[in-house]
Structures are given as C-alpha cells and as structure tokens.
C-alpha cells in the first residue's frame, strides 16, 4: 500500500494508528498474539481488573442476538496483583514497539476503583488507565456508577487523585443524557472519554422460558449497537473538547472512518474480535485502504469531519 499517515493523538497518548482492541474481548492479548503481531495495533486495552481475583458469573455467559451478542462475564479476572505480576509484564515489549497498553479498571465501590487504579498507575506497566464505570455500585443500591452524573463526578474525582497516568473514563450508554455524563467526567478530571460500553439487554429461550444468560441480563455489543454508539460519540464530541475513543460495533475500516468522522480520535474494536480473530488487523488495513482510495493523506484529518 502507498503512503498514508495513520497516526493519531488520543489526548496525551500517541497512537501509531487509531485502532485499539477493547477490554474483555481481548484477554491480556496473548491469545490474539498467536494470530498476528499485536504491534500492528494502535493499542490494546486488557480485561477488567478488580482488587481481588473474581470468579465471574456462572455460565452461560454469552447469548447471540441479531447482529450482536449479549455478554455477562461478570468480570472474571485474576485480580490486579496477579495481573501486574503475571499478565502485564508480557505486554511490555509491545509498548516499546509503540503500541499502547491500557489497563481497564473495574470495581464495586469507590475504594476498589481507587485501589486498583493506584496499583496500576504505580506499576509503570500501562500507558493509561481506563475506568469502567458500568459496574453496579453495591453500596449505592446496585445502580451502575456510570448512570448518574454526580456519582460519575465522585468516582472520577477519587480515581483522578491516585492516577498518575492518563485517565480514560469509559461511559455507559444506559443513560438519558450522555453529554451531561461526559461533562461531569471531564470536570472531574478525565483526560479521555471512551464510549460506549454495552447496552443492557435480555435474551430469552422461548421453550424453556428462561433467560439465556445465568445473570438474566447482559450487555449488548456488536454491529447492532453501532448507530447508537455513533450518535453518542457525536453528542459527546459536541458537548466537550476532550478526546474520544469511539467504541461500538465496528467491524470494518469503513466503520472506523465513521467513528472518526463522528468525533472520535481513535476507535475501539470489541465484539469483532470474537467474530473473527483477525478483525482488528483487517480494520487497520481497511482504514488504510479507505484513505488511499479516497486520497486522504492522514487518518487524523477525518476526526470530527462529519458535515452537517
């Protein structure tokens, strides 16, 4: 292929290209690393980490829906200490080769979020922390942290204090006013916003009359949610000046272009990895091909380029 410049800046992060693989769909990178050289990617966001090891939900954890999936993994992970000791070190070579590695932080309390962030931030093993605020606030009646502006402000503020690397706040789409949530996250110190996380959904087996997922509900992701993700990225880009990582249903280079046009500076690939282990590479290539075909010199030119 010819010469197009795929580099973009995602706030303080310099990316070799705008494509990052998304938390929970990419493990700690090792599985996909056997399919291709991960250094092809702009970045990798690893599985959610919590203070303690977590078993996660009983199976079934995945249900298929039209052009999408529901998942309720339940944050199975070895805990932040084990991740720092065993998983993240394996990704350091990647960082030296210019692919950013980002830690996804989850929790069920303010204390858990700050503890995990602190450890990751101190570890020196990640380029940034992504705060997953879609988890239920156990002490706050079980509502997700990310669904109330004040809670968002509080949790981001708390985490900000301990976070010495760039802080990405990952927004939940299960809200009335995503722009308001975004504003509060930025006020509280988010360097970057990532959106969307999954939309809560339910799948039912008509014959057994039971939910397909053991957890009853799960998070909807994949191509089905792309129009909602694009809308929210666009809304947030209008509302704040903070750089955006656009996520939701991207499976092709053209999809990535759409996210950039809507106002994202980089694009996350989640469910597509499950649909095809080579998806992220194909998206990088597809984006490059689009730029070549359309005679666009750089990916950065597309950011926020939607004409209205």
């Amino acid at each position, binding site marked *: 292929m010819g010469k197009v410049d795929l580099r973009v800046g995602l706030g303080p992060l310099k990316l070799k290209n705008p494509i990052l693989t998304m938390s929970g769909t*990419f493990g700690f990178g090792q599985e996909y690393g056997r399919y291709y050289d991960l250094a092809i990617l702009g970045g990798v966001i690893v599985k959610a980490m919590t203070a303690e090891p977590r*078993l996660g939900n009983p199976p079934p954890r*995945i249900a298929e829906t039209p052009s999408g999936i529901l998942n309720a993994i339940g944050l199975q992970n070895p805990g932040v200490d084990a991740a720092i000791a065993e998983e993240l070190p394996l990704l350091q070579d990647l960082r030296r080769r210019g692919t950013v590695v980002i830690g996804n932080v989850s929790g069920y309390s303010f204390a858990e979020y700050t503890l995990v962030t602190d450890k990751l931030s101190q570890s020196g093993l990640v380029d940034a922390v992504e705060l997953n605020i879609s988890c*239920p606030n156990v002490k706050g009646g079980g509502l997700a942290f990310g669904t109330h502006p004040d809670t968002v402000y509080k949790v981001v503020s708390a985490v900000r204090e301990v976070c010495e690397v760039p802080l990405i706040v990952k927004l939940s789409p299960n809200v009335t006013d995503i722009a308001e949530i975004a504003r509060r996250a930025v006020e509280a110190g988010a360097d970057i916003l990532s959106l969307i996380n999954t939309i809560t959904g339910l799948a039912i087996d008509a014959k057994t009359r039971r939910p397909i997922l053991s957890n009853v509900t799960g998070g909807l992701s*994949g191509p089905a949610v792309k129009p909602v993700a694009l809308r929210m990225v666009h809304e947030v880009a209008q509302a704040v000046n903070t750089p955006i990582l656009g996520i939701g249903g991207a499976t092709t280079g053209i999809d990535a272009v759409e996210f950039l046009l809507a106002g994202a500076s980089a694009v996350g690939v989640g469910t597509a990895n499950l649909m095809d282990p080579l998806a992220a590479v194909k998206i990088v290539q597809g984006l490059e091909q689009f730029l070549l075909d359309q005679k666009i010199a750089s990916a950065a030119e597309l950011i926020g380029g939607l004409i209205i």
Partner: protein
Amino acid sequence: MAKENIGKVLGAEIVDNKILVPYVYQLTIKVAKLASEIKPGQFIMIKVAPGLEPTLRRPFSLHRVDKETGTVQIIYQVVGKGTEILSRRKPGEEIEILGPLGNGFDLGEAERIGFVGGGMGIAPLLAVAEQAVQEGKEVVSFLGAKTGDYLLVKKEFARLGKIFIVTDDGSVGEKALVSKPLEKYLKHHDLDLLLACGPTPMLKALAAIVGAHGVKTQLSLEQRMGCGIGACLGCVVPIKADTPEGFVYKRVCSDGPVFWADEILFEVPKATEKQGGCSCG
C-alpha cells in the same frame, strides 16, 4: 489431555453436505491444513454465512478426518438459526473455518477403553475409537439415542469392538439411558479409561457412575461460545480447584472441551453465584 491448539482462520470448500436422518447432516469440507493438524476431540468453529448474521461462528467437533484427501467431516444437528443456514450451504461453496481448537482426547497408556456416546455425541467419538483400535487397544462402546435411526455410526463402532445399544423408545436395543448398560458392564469388567460425549444430563449421570467405580474418564463438554480461542471467557464451566470457593471457571474452548470427569462441578455452588452478579463485561 492433548495440548491446546489455537487454530487458524482457514478457507474451506464444501465437498458434501448431506442429510443423514431428519435434522442431522454430515458436512465434508476440503481444507488440507486443518486435516493435517486436527485430532479427535478437537473442534472447529464455522462461519456459517458471510456477513454479519449470524454474529458468531458455530462450534462443531471433529467426526472424521482424511489426511490423504485433505477432508474433514462433522455431523451436526439443525437446532437453530446457524445450523439451519449451514444445512442450506451447497457443495462447491467456500466456507470459513477457525480450527483446530481445544485439547482433544488423550488415550495415554490405557489398554481397555470404553466409549459412551449419547445422540449427536456419538459422532465425535468415532475417530478416537478408530485410533484406539489402530494403536492395538481394546474398545467397548455404549451408544444411546432417541430412536434407532439416530444411532448414527453404530455399524462403524460395531466393527471396532463390543457395543451396547440403547434407545429412548426401545426401537433398537434396550429402552434405557446409556448409563444403564455401562453401570452393568462395570460391575463385572474393568476399564482403564472412559471417553464420553453427549448431553450434559448424560455426562452428569456418567460422572457419578465412573466416580463410584474409579474409572478414569474424559468428558467432552459444550458451552455457548464467543471467541473460541480463550480470550473472552464466555464459554466457561466450573472446574474443581484449590481456591477459597473450591473451583474456578475454565474455558471449554481452550482449557477443554475435554475435561477429566472428576474435576468437573456440574452444579455451581449457590453461594458463589453472586461472585459475578453484573452484566458489565
């Protein structure tokens, strides 16, 4: 168990896709790379149609492989959208495969090996039973299905050694569950190893029987899958472990699909159900 295999994304040509009995098809695909690598008990994930629908690939166990012609066979039952689409695919068409995946069966040093197949679970056992015979081992098979027609490769198994047949309707063999002849058999005979594949209730019943008789047993498990390569943690089953909860969730796709029967927890302890308890990934 055999070593995990991470699989490749491979283009395959459909050689044949024929109906065996109502709703049950045998698919033969030509894909030399897969044929040269895949082992009994491993599985493949098939992208049943190009495009976005259905979203995910479908997992199917190896039935037979022919390294010479570079062909691989699976037997599958039409149970929903994906298998329905697959059943309409025609010879000559291209189809995308991810595989081989998973660990496969391990015959080890066993001399006398039992095979227990229920329904569609009979098909994945044939290749390993044939391998056992080739390696000079003794094979005893216990096959069950809803009716005689669904005892798919009964004849092939009969050629390999002694077989016990049951059906739900008694149309062929005894009217019983397949655990019954096995239990009877174990009263008077020893087995070094048992390999089983079939519906979960059958596997659960088997696990109890072989536990009581101390027969080393490998079970091939099924679970709804996402990635198929071990990354998404979508396909787990509870496996006993030295942890506070007494178990961990292991991945059917890459830690399995074959597990030792005595390691499997068929019921998740109630108290641990809320160790996830959220739909946030």
